């Protein structure tokens, strides 16, 4: 697969200014994004299940450049959402799609290996991962250390692409599994739910990594979590300020979150940042039959309306 990807990338250099792909990070367990501008740089390329990052996040800021980008199934939804919202010029992007069997959550691997420094990590054909530390070798299964999104992934093959590297894969995961956790959470009492969020959000250190990692958080330096005018939240480290920050993130993503999970991957405190957005997505699906990042012709449901809303009933007191 790596070899085929290398060939495809080598073939697009003449068409674009920059290629977004992956390279080795500071140790064996980490892969980082790389920006390749010259054909020689292709030697840096890495492709394996550690390539979890959603590289499409860079596309809006490179809107005026010609860019080739390597995408997995879930990443491609971000591109579709960008198209729906007019945030990229599709003709400036060459999408190199790769059907995906799942990626690795670095945190889960570190948890399995008791945070020992990783000497080496290799990947087998059927999702086995051997991890070598000073304490010895351990075999893990991809299905045990993948992020939650991969366990219910409906779109392993990119939805849009210009080149496809490898054969398309169809999902074998039940569509009902996607929001099973959300529905389960709704079985809790109101009191339990409030307690859950208070506990989770209280750990937030407001580093804003979740926001910075989110491809759909497009306000960047004008984020209302930091503006003084309007002054939505202060710098005080209180639960209500943290809660409010999460409400800002969730409501600005309402009906736009592509569920790429970058927010949770970035969070140093293990906060389920994606959960509120997924709850809203479930509602948008039930109310308007809408799913973000699936069809470039769609319009996000809160950007539009119908004069007669068949699914919204008037509320009585």
């Amino acid at each position: 697969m790596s070899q085929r990807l290398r060939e495809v990338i080598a073939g697009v250099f003449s068409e674009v200014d920059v290629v977004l792909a992956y390279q080795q990070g500071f140790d064996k367990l980490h892969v980082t994004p790389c920006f390749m501008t010259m054909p020689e740089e292709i030697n840096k390329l890495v492709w394996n299940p550690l390539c979890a990052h959603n590289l499409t996040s860079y596309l809006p800021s490179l809107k005026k450049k010609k860019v080739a980008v390597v995408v997995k199934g879930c990443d491609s939804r971000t591109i579709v959402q960008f198209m729906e919202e007019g945030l990229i010029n599709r003709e400036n992007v060459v999408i190199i799609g790769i059907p995906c069997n799942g990626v690795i959550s670095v945190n889960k691997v570190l948890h399995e290996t008791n945070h020992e420094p990783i000497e080496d990590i290799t990947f087998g054909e059927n999702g086995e991962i051997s991890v070598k530390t000073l304490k010895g070798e351990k075999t893990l299964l991809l299905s045990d250390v993948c992020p939650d999104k991969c366990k219910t992934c409906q779109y392993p093959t990119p939805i849009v692409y210009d080149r496809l590297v490898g054969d398309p894969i169809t999902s074998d995961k039940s569509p009902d599994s996607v929001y099973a956790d959300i529905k389960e959470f709704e079985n809790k009492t109101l009191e339990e739910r409030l307690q859950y969020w208070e506990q989770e959000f209280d750990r937030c250190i407001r580093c804003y990594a979740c926001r910075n990692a989110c491809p759909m958080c497009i306000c960047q330096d004008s984020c209302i979590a930091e503006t003084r005018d309007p002054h939505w939240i202060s710098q005080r480290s209180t639960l209500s300020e943290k809660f409010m920050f999460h409400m800002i993130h969730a409501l600005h993503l309402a009906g736009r979150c592509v569920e790429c999970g970058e927010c949770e991957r970035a969070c140093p405190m293990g906060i389920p940042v994606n959960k509120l957005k997924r709850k809203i997505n479930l509602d948008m699906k039930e109310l308007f039959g809408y799913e973000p990042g699936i069809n470039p012709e769609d319009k996000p449901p809160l950007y539009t309306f119908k004069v007669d809303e068949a699914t919204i009933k008037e509320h009585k007191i």
Partner: protein
Amino acid sequence: MSDIAARELRIVGFLCNWCSYGGADTAGVSRFKQPTDLRIIRVPCSGRVDPLFIVKALLNGADGVLVSGCHPRDCHYTDGNFYARRRLEMLKRLLPFLGIDERRFHYTWISASEGARWQQTVTDFTKRVHELGPLHARKEATP
């Protein structure tokens, strides 16, 4: 306990300038008796009501929030309330997920001539919020 129940609660109302604020005014001019828990914030249009206004109110001490705009098809700006309807419905469904009783938030449509309907809505909503009690009881109990 009875002490708290009898106390006035904090209810914030976001009313559009053209219809519901007029409706509230009509009720006032007609001297309809209304509960006094409601604090009205006049907005140009229900479409101006960012769902974050409601969340911010609830997180910062309000016990209930009421949003009221022009009836669908009657918006002064043609379609502001159509957008509002989708956003407010989204929020209505999100609140219980956060552990906040959705009955603390109500949105409705009241025109400038509907003074009696306004009176009824405020009375009923205030009654409901009183039944639910203060949202921040726990925090207030332990200063």
